[in-house]
């Protein structure tokens, strides 16, 4: 992240500035693999309402200033988990961060830095290759495993049994947690918090019979024992999942051979 001179001043006058809007600087880490050898920063002075989401600013830059700006976004309402990015150095969904929460103190120019999530290969601008992330996710068998005959009616579960894994059902696979994990940055073969959260969701499901298989997988050298409980994942999760707690619960299940 060397301080490279921001060469061009971008013309942002085309962006509509509604009443009550103020100008904020959006500093984006840009990378075009066809031109650039390495990522560089570019700044855009854009009008923003305090109620705007960071995603709105990015959309405005893409629509009015530079159509080549690349990022993922789908539902734009914090459900699909497409637009995970580093906003002011913290992993967040761009569609869930409001400008008013990022404003600088009175009289100072607000700068919002936006970078791709770390630990996954950046393909273009804010767009990363999610395949290593999903490879780890698939490796923990994130689906119901049940043996024996198919029941003729619904698989019944008590409210208390459902509560046991309720927290980890909230995961939207945005990769905010995994890409905030220092162990995952350092060595990409660690399963990462998201995969463990999704294993937890089935390990502690009373209807599931694959807990032992998954615990075996997570007991390996690249499994839960690499977690250093730095809590980055819990802080990053846009769904408020207690990720570190879930990882510790998997550790405890392994330690005491009890689910």
């Amino acid at each position, binding site marked *: 992240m060397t301080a490279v001179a921001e060469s061009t001043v971008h013309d942002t006058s085309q962006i509509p500035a509604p009443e009550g809007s103020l100008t904020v600087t959006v500093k984006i880490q840009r990378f075009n*693999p*066809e031109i650039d050898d390495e990522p560089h920063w570019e700044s855009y002075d854009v009008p923003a309402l305090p109620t705007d989401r960071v995603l709105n600013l990015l959309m405005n830059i893409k629509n009015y200033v530079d159509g080549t700006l690349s990022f993922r976004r789908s539902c734009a309402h914090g459900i699909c988990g497409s637009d995970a990015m580093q906003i002011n150095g913290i992993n967040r969904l761009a569609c869930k961060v409001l400008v008013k929460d990022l404003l600088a103190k009175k009289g100072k120019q607000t700068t919002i830095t936006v970078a791709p999530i770390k630990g996954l290969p950046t*393909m273009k601008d804010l767009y990363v290759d999610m*395949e290593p992330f999903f*490879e780890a996710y*698939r*490796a923990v068998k994130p689906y119901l495993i049940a043996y024996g005959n198919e029941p003729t009616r619904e698989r019944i579960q008590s409210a208390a049994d459902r509560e046991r894994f309720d927290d980890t059902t909230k995961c939207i696979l945005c990769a905010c947690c995994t890409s905030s994990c*220092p*162990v995952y940055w*350092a*060595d990409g*073969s660690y399963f990462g918090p998201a995969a463990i959260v999704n294993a937890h969701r089935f390990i502690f499901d009373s209807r599931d019979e694959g807990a032992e298989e998954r615990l*075996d*997988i997570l*007991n*390996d*050298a*690249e*499994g839960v*024992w*690499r977690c250093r409980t730095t809590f980055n994942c819990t802080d990053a999760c846009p769904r408020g999942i207690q990720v570190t707690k879930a990882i510790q619960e998997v*550790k405890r299940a*392994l*330690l005491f051979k009890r689910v």
Partner: protein
Amino acid sequence: MADSTSALALDKPRSPRRPAARRNNFELYSWVFMRISGLALVVLVLGHLFIMNILDGGVHRINFAFVAGRWSSPFWQFWDLSMLWLAQLHGGNGLRTIIDDYARKDNTRFWLKMLLYVAMAVILVLGTLVVFTFDPDIPAS
């Protein structure tokens, strides 16, 4: 640019890329060991520091006779021996984890670990040898 690699990646997109789980509890046991040895070391090391540096004039009274006197008791022999082994294994395991995290190439990782294991073995053997074979009657010459 990235065409050649992506073509390869599409070859068998869903094939497992991780080696099958080794099904052993080494990481689990080393994790437990770190917790237990850490607790033991708090007592052992703080006790050691207290005796050596604070009690009865502290560091100024330490000489050959003082060490010889301590190691004539099996209790202090055991104390020092367990401190040696726990600290070596605890620190060694911590460094192993750090090497696993930060070494970028498998080759670097392998040689750093070898260096670590050799260093651990030398210190453990040497320390154990001294604790058990210490002879206070060394001739003055």
